[in-house]
């Protein structure tokens, strides 16, 4: 309820009905960030385009959640930099060779050599796709 007080400013009146029976129960609300982000200090978001990772369910327009503090394992999906360019690929290490594998047969695996500038920036934790 609003009314004008003597100085012509609006004030808000507090209602004084029967208090809600749930008033002192504090259930915590579900929070998506709690579910998706373990380490907020080291988590970044990137939007991707292209079809090279569609095999694992990453499509154009999706937003990836990348955690830099997680150590990548073999077959982790990683965000990395190869010669100054960002890439999202599946990490594949065997017999001392490092390969970056796409999830789409159209693309050949990239073999990382000692002549490349290669840095792993983080592990892709989740992908967000919105329908509307």
């Amino acid at each position, binding site marked *: 309820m609003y009314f004008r007080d003597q100085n012509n400013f609006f004030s808000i009146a507090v209602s004084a009905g029967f208090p809600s029976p749930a008033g002192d129960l504090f259930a915590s609300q579900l929070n998506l960030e709690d579910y998706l982000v373990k*380490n907020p200090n080291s988590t*970044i*978001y990137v939007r991707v*385009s*292209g079809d090279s990772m569609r095999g694992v369910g990453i499509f154009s327009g999706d*937003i990836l959640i990348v955690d830099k503090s997680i150590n990548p394992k073999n077959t982790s999906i990683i965000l990395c930099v190869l010669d*100054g360019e960002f890439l999202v*690929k599946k990490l594949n290490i065997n017999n001392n060779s490092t390969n970056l594998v796409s999830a789409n047969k159209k693309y050949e695996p990239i073999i990382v050599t000692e002549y490349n500038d290669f840095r792993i920036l983080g592990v892709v934790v989740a992908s967000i796709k919105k329908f509307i």
Partner: protein
Amino acid sequence: MIFLVDCNNFYVSCERLFRPELLLSPVIVLSNNDGCIISRSNEAKQLGLKMGEPVFKAKEIIKNNNVHVFSSNFELYGEISNRIMSQLKIFSNNLEVYSIDEAFLEINSEDYKNIGLNIVKNIKKTTGIPVSVGIAETKTLSKIAGNIAKKSLDNCFLIENNWMAKKILSCTPIKDVWGLGSQYSKFMINNGISTAESFMNMDRNWILNKLNINVLRTRDELHGIKCHKVSSCSKPKKSIRVSRSFRNDIDNYQHLEKYVSDFAFLACKKLRKENKRVKQLQVFILTNRFKQSYDSKYFGTMSYEFFVSTNNYIEIIKHSLILLKNIFKDGLKYKKAGVIFNQLSPVDEYQSSFMMNNIKKNNDLLMDKIDYLNDKFGNNKIIFSSQNINDKSKISKKKLSPNYMSSWNNILNLDI
């Protein structure tokens, strides 16, 4: 032991996070309004670009060497800084955020060097920003250790004991000692004291007589005696300052009035966000020191003390303009102006005057409504008629990077 964690070329490092192709290229970041160089990559330093140098003076070097130039994106740097500081807390809860890119930590353990190396590794990995760590018995010594760490390969340096400190201080110029300032360094050099070691051996009474207690504390800290504690509670801001250099010089009073209104408004907004009131208001104007002949150099400043501390937009803008009127000189070309608030106090802790209570209340309500509407409908929807804020031409940020970390529209787009 005290650890000084200092981000390497912080602003440049932040920009590079999102532009990996710039890893080995010369990169610089400019101050507000694209005026001066405020951060340089190592490659840019090697080209001879100087800290604080006006960018027009460096035009040639920038063009000939393909230096990448960024306008400052303080929103981005602030967010990355928050992450670094919060990540540092896993090493110690006793952490003092000293500036946007520096923090002191107190850690009592063994194997300090290893902890330092871990900090460098952890921060680089989790945030992507390279840091250096200087470790020593006191803050002043850790600053000196930090300078050495910056130049060492592993970005970490430990001053283990007094003997080692002495060796290092004997080749540290007095001007590199933290907390002395250029005035005192000059005074000491004039008195034949050129290294930190010779300063350390000065007579304590002589320092007290000729200089002051703070200089004495600095001397004691070099001896490994702790005088400055690591204080984890952040110091409340003592002043608020909003100032800008104009892209084109201003000689018209009406123009200047608009800018000063804007600055006063912005400063007041900051003040209100921090729940503070201001007691002393200061306004300054400055002519262009690079362009003008000697006799037209002018720095005008004046301050006003409110009877009762205030956080009222109207009152603050009104008095800023009165001050401006007093310091304005006709016929000069002004390059810079600013508004500074001193003597801040929390909103609920101010000396009140009994006569003003009623008027105040109404005004407070009006001020709250202004903040509410501006927050809800976007900044600067409600402004004062003396202001200028919608004139976008005023701040020049031609090379601004997107706000990668604070808006979904601006997050990094990757073609994978």
